[in-house]
């Protein structure tokens, strides 16, 4: 095992000790995120794209829109599909192959935030009820794993959706004819995921890789533009007390507001 996979025991101990005193090894406060950089529109072939750098964590999201069939139970709505790839170039611990449970969980957490906040007006993506709708593919591509893939991926997905341009089209005899020009994909809500790690019975926001390695449990809260909570996910083998969950909610609502300003330019 190379040194880059696991932090040395002595470093892990130091990280945990500092957190017990409300400090962190990289000198952040308990609720601070790492520096965030967002670039959009870097993939011209995609309808929308964004790259988010959260410290050294790097995630690229591409949006593709294609014509497809609706689900049987919602015949007059477009389809949202979120997929995550933990490609081997992003970490020595990632391997090629079909999506494992970590990438499925990641995709489903991001999916839940977008879906439950009703960010995309799926009703407007119906061409012919029961037969033809638009499918929005959100493909999350992790390029460098240094912890907290969830917040980075959710942020990149939102940034990419805000960057998405739908091609103009006409419907003639049930066939879709693409016309020149694009219009932005309308978004009705802006969900933001905020993830906490529990270490030494203390909560910290935005854990980086070495903090994730020693965390007992993880909690992600997705907050919508009105400060409502629209998705939750606990992960890891530890647990949270009710008090800790309430504490996290308060912080998440504030943090989401702050992070949203980085992506959504009024």
């Amino acid at each position, binding site marked *: 095992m190379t040194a880059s996979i696991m932090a040395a025991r002595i470093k892990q101990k130091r990280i945990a000790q500092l957190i017990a005193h409300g400090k962190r090894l990289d000198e952040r406060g308990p609720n601070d995120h790492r520096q965030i950089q967002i670039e959009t529109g870097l993939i011209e072939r995609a309808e929308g794209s964004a790259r988010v750098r959260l410290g050294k964590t790097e995630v690229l999201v591409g949006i593709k829109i294609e014509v497809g069939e609706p689900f049987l139970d919602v015949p007059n709505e477009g389809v949202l599909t979120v997929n995550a790839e933990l490609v081997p170039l992003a970490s020595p611990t990632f391997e090629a192959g079909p999506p494992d*449970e970590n990438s499925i969980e990641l995709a489903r957490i991001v999916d*839940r935030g977008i879906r439950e906040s009703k960010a995309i007006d799926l009703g407007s993506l119906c061409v012919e009820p029961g037969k033809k709708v638009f499918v929005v593919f959100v493909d999350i591509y992790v390029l460098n794993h240094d912890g907290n893939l969830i917040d980075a991926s959710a942020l990149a997905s939102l940034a990419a959706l805000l960057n998405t341009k739908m091609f103009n089209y006409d419907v003639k005899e049930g066939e879709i004819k693409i016309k020149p020009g694009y219009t932005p994909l309308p978004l009705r809500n802006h969900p933001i995921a905020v993830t906490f790690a529990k270490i030494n019975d203390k909560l910290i926001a935005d854990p980086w890789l070495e903090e994730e390695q020693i965390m007992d449990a993880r909690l992600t809260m997705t907050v919508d533009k009105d*400060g409502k909570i629209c998705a939750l996910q606990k992960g890891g083998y*530890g647990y949270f007390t009710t008090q800790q969950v309430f504490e996290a909610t308060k912080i998440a609502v504030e943090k989401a507001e702050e992070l949203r300003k980085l992506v959504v330019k009024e």
Partner: protein
Amino acid sequence: MSQKKQEKLIDENGVRLDGRKVNELRPLKIEVGVLGNADGSAYIEMGKNKILAAVYGPREVHPKHLALPDRALLRCRYHMAPFSVQERKSPAPSRREMELSKVIREALEPSVFIEYYPRTSIDLFIEVLQADGGTRCAGITVASLALADAGIPMRDLVAACAAGKVEGQIVLDLTDVEDKGGEADMPLAFMPNANAITLLQMDGMLTEEEFEQTISLAVEGCKQVYQLQKEALKAKYMAAKDVVKEEATEE
């Protein structure tokens, strides 16, 4: 489909479609030790949910390279039978089942002294025979009992139950119809002895205040489930005691 949606899920007296009050659990039937081959097993009916759980282990790990030097490897498979839902479900594991297997494992692992069994595996199988909303919670409840039935040392039983918001009201233990027609669903697993939440998920939309109410209600629900779990576990041994007594008198 559209007719169903128009039907009100909670009437003006606060009574739900299946006759329950907003803070009432579905009728629960739990049985421990139901399968012959498994080291531990249990069966639960929670309303129309019917779920079997079985535990094999601690046993040798296959493939061997997965063995952990300092603790047991807890593995979990949550799976739905093709006939468990309205439209036949393909028996191949779906993305949803993959995610649920992961979160269920993480909900149960804090309760098990896995450090007692290094280099072994504890394999947990949850088969949903019939589903009606809240299968992950019922699955955790029944799986925890199967672990106890297998005689594996545990810190506490894990009880699980969902709460959510339906037609503006905070309700306990949502059915499938309530989940689909409601505003939010929050499955939660709880170890009462440690005041520990070991599974927490939510989809829907809740304000901060509603969120706190929902968590509190779900925790209350878990405590009720917990009592029934303990009774079911005791019932198995009481039955065994009766058999021993009978045999003794026959001699």
